[in-house]
């Protein structure tokens, strides 16, 4: 299975399926190293058709794990201390 290292921005479509806000411009704080940034600058590993992993660019900790099964999404945010959303307009 192909795994591609991409920018957080590349996961905008997948994140848009589960979040009502524009995720790539949302701020995050990493639960492991305390680093902050916007998700668009994080590292994304996309396992085609199966899921998406967003990692902290500072320490590689998994911030968001998205698993896509037909008709079901699993969102694991345990590596994220918080997400910060500017304005929910879509």
């Amino acid at each position, binding site marked *: 299975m192909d795994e591609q290292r991409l920018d957080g*921005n590349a996961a*905008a479509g997948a994140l*848009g399926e589960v979040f009502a806000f524009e995720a*790539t411009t949302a701020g995050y704080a990493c639960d492991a190293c305390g680093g902050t940034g916007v998700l668009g600058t994080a590292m994304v590993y996309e396992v085609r*058709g199966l899921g998406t992993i967003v990692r902290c660019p500072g320490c590689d900790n998994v911030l968001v794990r998205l698993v896509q099964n037909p008709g079901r999404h699993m969102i694991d945010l345990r590596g994220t201390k918080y997400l910060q959303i500017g304005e929910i307009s879509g």
Partner: protein
Amino acid sequence: MVARLYRTLWRIGEVVGVVSETPRTKSLVLDVPGWEGHKAGQHVDVRLTAPDGYQTQRSYSIASAPEDERVVLTVDRLDDGEVSTYLTDVVTAGDRLELRGPIGGYFTWEEGDGGPLFLVGGGSGVVPLMAMTRHRATSGSDVPTRLLLSFRSHEEIIYREELEDLAAHDGSLEVFYTLTRARPQGWTGYHRRIDARMLEEVSWGPHESPLAFVCGPTPLVETVGTALVGLGHDPARVKTERFGATGG
């Protein structure tokens, strides 16, 4: 709410034209009913479904300016590519494509964001940079802009004539090329992979705080991003878009 639905929902675009850009690269001109516009730098996800129900999707940057009512994608053909071979070999005018977008709020440039703009791309990484360049031209912006583009050979340069034309009529737009494999006789441009020295020669210095957009194959983007920050550029003003894998 409506915007969110469009971003998330799959919808159909009709291919109204196919343009050969280079021997390996084609532009698909799409008519997407109800397209509500995009920002330069955004992409769409394209989804293909086989007769047996197997689905696969890939991201493609929007090449056209936001002012353009048609949505143009430019696809580089990878010999062993699942989706890019279909889009470049099979799709013709009249076909329909399933897509969602526009997507991505991060790797975008609008006229009001200012500059100076430093756009660095490799191979099809030029696509979102072209949307920014077209938007800049269409909106009448005179933000000083430099493009540094890496291709394998002269015949693989995408949008070469249009860029030449734009630069010829616009003193604040400059285009630099580097050819990494073959170069024509008499070539006076660069002929190596982009490195820190090339970036230093072409870019504005950090004190002029250019806004940099770097796009292309993952290794190129990582080299350039690291080198720019190493040269003293503010990481917050160096935006990257990795296209994946190898190539360029």
